[in-house]
C-alpha cells in the first residue's frame, strides 16, 4: 500500500493528478529497459480497468494513454470530483499498477521500484 498524498484538501485535483502522473512516469522510466516502452501504458490502462467500478471518474485512463493526459484533459475529466476522492482513486491505480507488475515479473522489478515510488510520493507532498 502506497502512502496517500497528504494535504489533499489544500491542493486541486489537477495538481494531485499531475503529481501522480509524474510518479507513473518514473515507473515507466524504470520498467522500459526491461519490458519495453508500451508496458507501463498498458499496465495503467489495465489498472484503470480494474478500479473503474470503484472510481468511475478514472475510467478515461482505460481508453487514453497516460502520456496523453494534459492539464486540459484532467480539468475536463475530473471537474467536480473532490481532491480527496482523486487521491484515493489515483492511489488505488498505483497499487493496481504494482500488482500488475508483480503479475508480470514477480519480485524482479517491483520491490525496489515500490520503494523509489514511495520516496518520490513523500517528496511531492
Amino acid at each position, binding site marked *: 500500500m502506497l502512502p496517500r498524498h497528504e494535504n489533499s484538501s489544500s491542493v486541486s485535483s489537477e495538481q494531485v493528478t499531475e503529481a501522480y502522473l509524474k510518479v507513473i512516469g518514473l515507473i515507466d522510466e524504470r520498467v522500459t*529497459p*526491461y*519490458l*519495453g*516502452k*508500451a*508496458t507501463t501504458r*498498458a*499496465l495503467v*490502462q*489495465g*489498472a484503470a*480497468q*480494474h478500479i473503474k467500478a470503484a472510481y468511475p471518474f478514472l475510467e478515461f485512463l*482505460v481508453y487514453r494513454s497516460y502520456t496523453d493526459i494534459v492539464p486540459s484533459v484532467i480539468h475536463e475529466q475530473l471537474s467536480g470530483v473532490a481532491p480527496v476522492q482523486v487521491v484515493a482513486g489515483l492511489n488505488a491505480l498505483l497499487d493496481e499498477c504494482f*500488482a*500488475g*507488475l508483480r*503479475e*508480470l*515479473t*514477480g519480485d*524482479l*522489478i517491483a520491490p525496489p521500484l515500490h520503494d523509489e515510488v514511495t520516496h518520490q510520493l513523500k517528496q511531492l507532498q
Partner: protein
Amino acid sequence: MESSVQSMSQTTDSAFRFSNGYTADRLISIRHEMEYLNTIGKEFVAAIDRFQVHRALLKALREIYSFSACCILLKDNTFEKESPFELFIIPCYPLDATFFESIIQRIASAASALNLIHTTADQLARTAYFDAPDDLALSRSQEEVVGSEIGSFLNIPLTVENRIIGMLSLFDEKMGTFDTDLFQMTTMIADYAAIALENVRLHERENALWRQAELERMRLSLIIGSMAEGLLITDAKGAITSLNTSAEQLLAQAQVNFSPDILLHKLAGTSNVQWISRLAEIVDQALAGYTVKNQELVAGQAEERVPLTLSISAAPLLDASGTSARPLGVVAVLNDITPSKQVEQLKDEFVSVVSHELRTPLTAIKGYTQHLVRRIERRLRKTRSSQLESSTAVNDLPENYDLRSLNIVQSQTEHLERLVNDLLDLSQVQWGQLQLRPETFYLADLLTDMVRSVQSSAEQHTISLQIKAKDTKIIADHARIAQVVGNILDNAVKYSPYGGQVIVRLKQQDGYYQVSISDQGLGVSPELFDHIFERFYRVHNTATQQLSGIGLGLYVAKAIIDRHGGRIWLSSNQGMGSTFHFTLPPSPPQ
C-alpha cells in the same frame, strides 16, 4: 546447460581497460552476446510459420534458462477467428495437472494486468494449443519435477512498434530461475519473437487475401465465361485485351481474326469487313467517356436473308480511385439480335401479305357499296319526282334508311382502307421501297385543298391557313405530301376533342419550305418527342386512350419527308397543344 552468456557476464573485470572504458573481458562478453543475438536473429528471420517461430524461441531460451513451460499468448483481432486470442503452450513432460492450472491462472491474471485480454482461466485453458517440437521437447524424469506449484515465472509483453500483440510467459517449479541478469536478454529474445510472429501473421493474412482474391477472380472468370452475351474489353488505346467465349463465337461468324492486342482501328484499315470500322467508332466514343447503348451493327453478309445483327453497348472503364479522368479501357457487351430481326422480318412480311390480301376484298366492297348507293339515290330521285302525284312522304321511305346504312358502310370501308394503306406504306418503308412520283405543283394550293377537305368534316374546329411565301412551286410527290399534311391535320383534329383553332403556316426559310401545323389539343410531353415518330408508337394516357389509331401515320409521314430530303419534328405550344413542323426542299434529292 547454463548459458555461455550468463557465465560470461559473471566473469570479473580485468584490470586493463580500453579507450572506451570497457575491460577486455567485458568486450569479449559483448562480442559473445552479439554473436548469440545474431544467431537467434537468423533463426527468427528464417521462420515462415508460427511453429518455426516457436522452435526458434524455445531454442534461444533454452540457451539461457532451464524451465518447465514456455507459453505464448497472442491477441487476434481478425474477425474470422472465433476467439480473440490464441494460447500456445510448450511444456516439459510429464506436466503436473495442478501446475498446469496454476500457469493458466497466472497467464490470465498477467494478461488482464496488461489490459491485453480479460478472460477466465477456464476459457483460456479451453483454447490452449500444446506444441512441442520433437527435437526440442523438454522431457525429464519424474524425479526432476520439484513440485506442482509455480516456483518462479516471467511474463514479458510481446511488442511490435510500441503495440502489445501478446505475451511470452516462462514458468518453472524451482525458485529463482529467472533473475535480473538475464532479464534484458530475455526481453530481446521476446522482441525478436514478437516481430517474427507479427511477420507470420501478416504473411498468413496476405495468403488469405490472395486466396480470396484468386477465388473472386475465378468466380468472375466463370461468370464472364458463362454469359450468353459477348463481352469485349479493350485497353486505353482501343486494342482488344480480352473476349469471352460468347464474343469469340459471335465474332468468329464474321470470319475476322480478333487476335489480342490488335488495335481495332488498325484492323478496320486492313480488313474489308465494313462493320469493324463502326465497332472501332463505338469503342472510340466510349474511350472519350461516353456510354453507348444498343447500337445495331450488321455483321453478317448482306446477301443473307437475315444477316447476323449485333446490338452493342459500350462503356468506359474508369479507374476506381477516380484519379485518372481518362478511361483505362472499354467494356463492350455484344448481343446477337438476329433472332429478333428474323421475327421482325416475318412480322413485316405477314403485315405486307395480309394488307395486300385485304385490299382486294376491300376494293370490291367499296365498289359494290358505291354501286348500291347510286342505285338507291336514283330510286329516291324517281320517287321525289312522283311525290307530287302521291301523298307518301319521301323521308319515310325504306330506301332512305338503306342509304344511311350504306353511307356508314362506305365510311367504315374508307377507314379500313386507310389502315390497310398505312400498313402497305409501312411495308414499303421497311423494305426501302417507298417510291416517289415527283411532279410540279404549288404547295400553297395543296395546303388550301387539304384545309378545306379536313374542315368539311371538323365542325367543332376552325382551321386557318397563313401563307408567308411568294412562290410556292415545288417538285414533290403530290399524293405523298398530301398524305403527310392530311395525317397531321387529322391528328390535330382528333387530339383536340373539345374543338379549337388549328393554324397551318407556310413560310420559306434557308431555301426550304417550312410547314407548321399548330393545334390547341391535348399536346405531347417533351420526353416523348423522340418516340412519337417511331412505328406503332402511341401516347398512352387517360386523355388519349379513347382515341383510335395504330401509331403508323407519323412513322410513314417521317419516312416520306426524309425521302424528300426534308425534316419533320414536333414542338410544344406554350400553354396547350402542339406544333408539327416539316421542311421540304424545292425539289427532292436525286
